[in-house]
């Protein structure tokens, strides 16, 4: 499925959105990420796969500095977003997170109405000048989150009252309401049933037109279905990073092959 159907955007897709160079992450004494170099391309879905505890979620959280909220976590090396070092002292992590949105493993809608959930980001960043604009932003985000039709009649209902799959799509809509450039997804489907998973995957594929999407997943089928690039992590190392098709049909590293054929995991 990799860009063959859409040759018009090939040039843009080769643009590098995030460049990570010699990234090390420590949790206290534990060396969780070792020397990771990776270039994440614009308007591409990049999947991080690997066995549990291999550091893929940790690395994902470095990309929007979510690890800053953990006291004992220390990040070394540099990560550039559009050529700008995000760990530079002058960069405000709060601003960065508005640009690099995140969707979590477990749907985590706030205990507020559906409308307020989506309007949360635009409100704190002052994206709307008046109620009308805010309404528009919310509707647009919910439409892009592929959940508008299900909730348009009950925007005042609490977000926590939705089903799991709906909650996750609401969280995705909430993340894209702030108009991020990159969307990080940490196992977004692990708490969802197959139907909801299919809906979210379809959504991810749509999002590729506008955003860089980085998705951490435990399901290799999912990585194969939604991503164009795949990175395989093992014990804190980035073992292999290539086009998804190559990783799954013709892995270069032995460990990658063992993992995708189910011998390690």
């Amino acid at each position: 499925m990799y860009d063959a159907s859409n040759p018009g955007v090939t040039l843009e897709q080769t643009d590098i959105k995030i460049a990570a160079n010699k990234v090390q992450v420590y949790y206290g004494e534990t060396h969780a990420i070792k020397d990771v170099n990776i270039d994440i391309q614009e308007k591409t879905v990049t999947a991080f796969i690997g066995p549990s505890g291999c550091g893929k979620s940790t690395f994902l959280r470095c990309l929007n500095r979510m690890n800053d909220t953990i006291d004992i976590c220390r990040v070394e090396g540099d990560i550039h977003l559009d050529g700008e070092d995000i760990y530079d002292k002058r960069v405000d992590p709060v601003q960065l997170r508005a640009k690099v949105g995140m969707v979590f493993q477990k749907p985590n809608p706030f205990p507020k109405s559906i409308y307020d959930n989506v309007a949360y980001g635009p409100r704190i960043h002052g994206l709307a000048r008046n109620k009308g604009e805010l309404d528009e932003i919310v509707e647009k985000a919910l439409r892009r989150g592929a959940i508008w039709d299900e909730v348009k009649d009950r925007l005042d209902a609490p977000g926590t009252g939705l089903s799991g799959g709906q909650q996750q799509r609401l969280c995705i809509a909430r993340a894209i309401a702030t108009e991020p450039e990159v969307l990080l997804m940490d196992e977004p489907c692990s708490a969802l049933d197959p139907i909801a998973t299919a809906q979210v995957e379809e959504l991810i594929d749509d999002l590729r037109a506008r955003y860089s999407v980085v998705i951490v997943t435990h399901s290799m089928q999912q990585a194969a279905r939604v991503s164009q690039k795949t990175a395989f992590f093992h014990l804190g190392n980035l073992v292999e990073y290539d086009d998804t098709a190559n990783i799954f049909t013709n892995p270069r590293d032995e460990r990658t092959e063992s993992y995708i054929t189910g011998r390690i995991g």
Partner: protein
Amino acid sequence: MSVGLVILVVVAIATVGFFIGRARAVSSVAGDVRQLHSLPSYYGQTVFLFSAVPALLVTLAWLLLQPLYVENQVSGIILPGDIAEGSSLDLVMADVRRISSGLDTAVAAGVLDKNALTQLDASQTDVRALLGDVGVALASDVHPNVFAAAREYRATTATLKGAMAAVAVVLAVLGAVIAFARIHPEYRARNVSELAIKSLLILSSMVAILTTVGIIFSLLFETSNFFRMYPARDFFFNLTWNPQFTGGSDLGILPLLWGTLYVSFVALIFAVPIGLLVAIYLSEYASRKVRSIVKPAIEVLAGIPTIVYGLFALITIGPLLRDYFAQPLGLGASSSSVLTAGVVMGIMLIPFVSSLSDDVINAVPQAMRDGSYGLGATQSETVRQVILPAALPGIVGAILLAASRAIGETMIVVMGAGAAAKLSLNPFEAMTTITVKIVSQLTGDTEFASPETLVAFALGLSLFVVTLCLNVLALYIVRKYREEYE
């Protein structure tokens, strides 16, 4: 045999039963304990339980019922004519008990021997002087009938105590023998032990519940006595509180209720914002190191006795508020004021609010914070817009618990707010609360027969109802909150 000795003997019998029961269990399978249904000591335990529990329960019941029975027997000796003017049968019976125990002391001290006691005639001998010699002071001379009653009381009590000891020991031995006879390898001793543990747990929770019920009933009983003497309408709607021990009092609860609510309100005005901010700082901002120092330091506040807070109110806060606020503003010249008590009580309540709110805020799932930070919110935006709304029901619960604590507070109010029952809006004026008035109505030499003393129970019951409602409300809110995240 004294009660302590009886209990000791019963326990000793049961302990011996434990060891022989255990030994029998082991010998019944010829030493191969794997053939037993339960571990050997469980068999010992069943013997112990069968022996000790019934014997001790009977002893307890006996101890509770014996005085009732004896008094019932003895009070017949006292004729209506023996009761002096202004006295009552209850008071005479109190004398009887006192003389009876005085006689015990006299016999023990060797002043009287048994024969002398049986021949002693109160109309001839001065019993008061006799007992005075052994250190038992009586209020008046002893009437012959009263003395006879006391002698009878003493004799019956002694007989019954002996009987109780015998019954307890026999029951203990009987229980041990029965349990011993039942021991065989298939006997499910573990399950019996389990049942005993369960009963113990049920019993313990019953003690708590029954005590509450007992408190309510004693309050209800005395309150109904009060309302027989004083109209309920006046109690609830009269605007003055002016007890006169000569009669004709005004006993309206409203000034006291107003004082209580006013002081509590002021206390909460101070405690809630500070406590809440402390909780937010500790749970969201403070590093682990700061938290490990600050949290215990704040909780020390909760450990200070309220009387010490009272002193603080009396000598520091009261004069301070009077000199720098009340007098310059022309609002009063008293160092005891609602504000004094309220501020000090507020300080006392800070750890309640902060500690409970801290727990509630910590219980908000990390996913909520992640979600908010992930959208580019700052820490205070996250606290304000996500964490506080999510924790609000729990925080309200914490505040209500603090409020019921404030309403029940006495010492700080006595020393900080004074004792004048007043209906006023001026926070610099001395006022008083329900609890303070309960204390002042009951201190001193009082009998529970006039509305002026009995009103204390009506006040207590009103207070109990108010705090109970607050607690129920708090529990309801906290419970509702709990369901939200599970």
